[in-house]
């Protein structure tokens, strides 16, 4: 299977109390379990079933994903920061892996 690649867009610095946008895009087949391969066998379900954003240890955004989410899932959401910190993204894979990535945001 292809490597799990992450692309993210997070501002390096934000003003205190300012609403800003966070975007992430990852590579994942998001096999829904309803498709058949060339060998005629059903391709088992393999999706990211949960996405979380944790800011300074506190979950600020979470989403349960189901089989209708497309290949290479993209998500964008807005946040507001009162103090500088690290935002951590967690993608929970059906195969048990949790893909983790984080970025520091400076509040000025």
């Amino acid at each position, binding site marked *: 299977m292809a*490597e799990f*690649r992450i*692309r993210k867009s997070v501002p390096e610095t934000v003003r205190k109390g300012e609403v800003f946008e966070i975007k992430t*895009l990852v590579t994942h087949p998001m096999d829904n379990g309803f498709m058949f391969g060339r060998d005629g066998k059903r391709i088992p379900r393999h999706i990211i079933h949960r996405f979380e954003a944790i800011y300074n240890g506190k979950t600020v955004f979470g989403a349960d994903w189901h089989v209708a989410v497309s290949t290479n899932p993209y998500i964008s959401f807005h946040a507001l920061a009162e103090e500088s910190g690290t935002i951590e993204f967690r993608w929970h894979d059906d195969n048990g892996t949790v893909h983790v990535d984080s970025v520091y945001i400076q509040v000025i």
Partner: protein
Amino acid sequence: MSSTHFIGAFLAVEMLAAVVLTAHAQERQLTSGAFPLSGYHYMGTQIQELQDDEFLNPGRFAVDHGLELWLESDGSEGLSCHSCHGDASVSMSGVAARYPQFDENRRSLVNLEGRINEMRTEFMKAEPLELESEEMLALAAYLTFQSLGEVMDVDVSGEAARYLEEGREYYMQRRGQLDLACSQCHDERAGMMLRGDRISQGHVNGFPVYRLIWRSMGSRHRMFRWCNWAVRAEPRELGSDEYLSLELYLAWRGRGLNIESPAVRP
């Protein structure tokens, strides 16, 4: 049998013709085969936006991967592409726009993938990359990306002229159970609908492309195989002589178009 029925039917035909004509007026720009028009113009605005957005374009993942491979040493000589060619944004700028080309030493056509494997085996003493493997597509996408916006311009003079003619023949030849030639759709019916899809002129300036129905990258030759399969003809091998000639013909046919790779196609 009254004549009113006949007039009614006639009016209906007239009205239908009017509707068709209006639709045709809108499509005139797309259907005109007078100048080459990238497949970009034949897809919906949503997919165009997906291609144009640097963040969202899924093909950019392959480009990122390709850069890693460009820097990675492989083979017994301990060389990477970068060891000899340096910064690809300088050394490879415009290169992909001139492929495929006739190779004097090999006495045959060679495309970008063929050249990559030649470099790997001859200079790096590394294993050739499997055609259509993720690595080959990534490296090809990275190289072609260095020509983004460059004008596609292949050399068809001298020895290459023979291959151009072979490619043209393949393109014009009816084949498969549906008995269709490439030209019947992509020259004569470009801009018209084929079920839910709008038929493009069939240019190769976007390759390697991220194709949504494949959910992955694909080369020009994979697309040829797909097209052959679609008319229920027997697909040729990736990298085969027929496909190389066809690739040369299509690159020449779309000369003047800008390289769009990594393009997104439906």
